[in-house]
């Protein structure tokens, strides 16, 4: 087994395991922490795929941003309630069945046709390429992204501000 493969399997196990923990753990805090782990695992996968830049972004934005917001949210709500929010699942069986079927379908579809087994050799500086692409070819979406974030944040502000 090549180191690549080994790494992949380890990451896969970590990722799936933590993902399951995220959706199943009884305590919301733990769930968030598990999510952090899952995201980090994803970053690992990115590294494995030689996308260092993305891995970084992943860690910063996700593991940084999201988790922080989540924790913040939990803290807020918890403070208001006064006791730690325990978190349970509903309709586990029905959900599990549907989702399992879904997964089954997708996976079988994926394996129907063997895709290229080996990745071509990496050429050039990916980070630079990404930057170039964003700034040239994908400038329009990028601009719009700014507007979108503005709108999103304004919405968040509008909802969250305790005024009026």
């Amino acid at each position, binding site marked *: 087994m090549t180191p690549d493969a080994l790494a992949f399997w380890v990451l896969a196990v970590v990722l799936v395991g933590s993902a399951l923990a995220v959706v199943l753990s009884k305590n919301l805090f733990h769930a968030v922490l598990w999510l952090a782990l899952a995201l980090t695992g994803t970053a690992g996968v990115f590294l494995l795929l030689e996308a260092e830049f993305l891995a970084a972004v992943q860690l910063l934005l996700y593991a940084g941003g999201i988790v922080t917001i989540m924790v913040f949210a939990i803290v807020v709500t918890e403070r208001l309630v006064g006791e730690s929010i325990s978190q349970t699942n509903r*309709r586990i069986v029905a*959900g599990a069945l*549907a989702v399992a079927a*879904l997964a089954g379908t*997708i996976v079988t*579809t994926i394996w129907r046709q063997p895709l290229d087994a080996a990745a071509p050799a990496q050429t050039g500086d990916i980070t630079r390429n990404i930057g170039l692409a964003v700034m040239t070819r994908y400038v329009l979406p990028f601009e719009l992204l700014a507007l979108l974030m503005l709108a999103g944040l304004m919405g968040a502000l509008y909802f969250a501000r305790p005024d009026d």
Partner: protein
Amino acid sequence: MMEPGYLALAAPLLHLLAFLILALVAPLRKAGRAGAFVSILCAAGALTAAINAWRAHSGDQISRIVWTWLPEQGQTLATVGVLADADSTVMLCLVALVSLLVQVYSLGYLHDEPKPALGRYYAYQSLFAFSMMGLVIAPNLLQLFICWELVGLCSYLLIGFWYQKPEAARAALKAFWTTKAGDVGLLIGIVLLYRQAGTFDLTELQVLVANGALPLAGLSIITFCIYLGAVGKSAQFPLHVWLPDAMEGPTPVSALIHAATMVTAGVYLLMRTAWLFALTPDVLLIVAWIGALTALLAAIMACVQNDVKRVLAYSTVSQLGYMMTAIGAGFAGAGFFHLLTHGVFKALLFLGAGAMIHAVHSNNLSDMGRLARSMPQTAIVFIVGTLSLAGIPMFGGFLSKEEILGAVWEGGLVGPFLILMVVAFLTAFYMFKAVFLAFFGLAPSHAPHPAPSHAALSHPHDPPVSMSLPLWVLALLSMAIGVYFTFTHPEPEFASPGWLMPAAVGVAVAGIGFAWLVYQRRVISADGLARAFSPLYYAAENKFWIDAFFEKVIARGALAFSRTIAWLDRYIVDGLLNAISAWTLTAGDDLRGMQSGKAQDYVYGVAVGLLVLLLWVQFA
């Protein structure tokens, strides 16, 4: 001399004119007598026109005038017009005469009707006369059927003239429905015949028959259907039930419609289409037997009646049976001859009875008696009529009756012949029973019946001239006919055996004598007689349960069936519809459960939808 066709046409049109005037000019109608005079005037005109038409028409030359009534794809489907020949014109005269007399008579008879009602009465009368004449001169079966229905309508209206009387209202309906039932047959017959022959026109049909161009297959069904029409109108067994009830109408109406003219339409129809029936002897046999049967039953029932009008009604039925038998025997001429004479003297009898009823304010024979003293004129004319009916020589019915008997004998129908002899006896018997009870015998007070009504005690007297005049006219006419034919014996279409005439007369006289013994001399007690024939008597009293059968079984059955259908319609057919819609509504409610309001479930919905979609992608 004018074309007889137009003269014949003038007669009904005059009556139509009268009808329209009365119908449209409301004030005139509401004025009562004024309207009556208009109508009578037209009737008189019609009579002269009819008589002229009759005289104008010579020998067996036929005058036929038709106009297109119903076009189809460029050709003519049906025509209207007039067919004036020997038979139709003489029949026309009869109708015109009787209707005129009856209208005159009604002036007196209905003098204390409210004015508008009187106007209505004369309007109906004119309409009837118009339709009847239209029927008589009809050149084709369709026009005949149209007028056939119209006379039925008028009979309905006139029977129900006093519709505030429940019996009258019911009788009117009964009459209409019963005859209508027969008409269904006639209509089917006409339709079938059209398919067979391609025409409604009598003349053309006759030509077809003469050339043998008319396919015989299924012809007997057609003729039988046509005969059904006659059964309904001419009150043949078993559809005779309506005629006695029809006596609820004013007596003049009974005289005109239910004695002289309308009821004989059936006979007339068969006479008009005799050449067609001749092709189907089997049907003719049925006609004969039914006719004889009707004659017998009616005669028996007549014997047990105490209501003078019902006696006459049953005798009418029985006489119609006579005519039918003759036609069945294949000698329509004889039947028609009797139709004419019978028309005269039966009208006379009814009008006479009307006079009696008018006098004593009761139909019941037991409320009369010794009327000969108080109203001699009536007595005389009534007896004249009775003798004619009994078939006594020198009187109206004598020869026609004898001809019928001869015809039946010649036709080789021994059974019906014997029956008719019996009927002849019975006829004489019950008619003279009526005569003795009404005009002679004991005063009503001594009658064995329970105390007579006050009506009887009031002093009866002869009717006013407006009523007696028609009586005398008819009486003289039937005498005249009788005398004329007794001396100038016309050549019948057949040679009846010599013994026939004496036999017939003998039977009649025997009947009279027997009636004299029972009701005048009272050497034989009527009750004893009843007891002797008790089963028959009982049956006759119950009209042989025929009416009961129609009312209890058929009418009620139909009603119950219709109720079932209506129930099914409302609660099953419509119910199913409602059920479907209700299910739809319920489905809407149930589906709402799907919208649980929980975000997770919504996503679950998305997931499931996605799953299905992916599965489809997988396996399709």
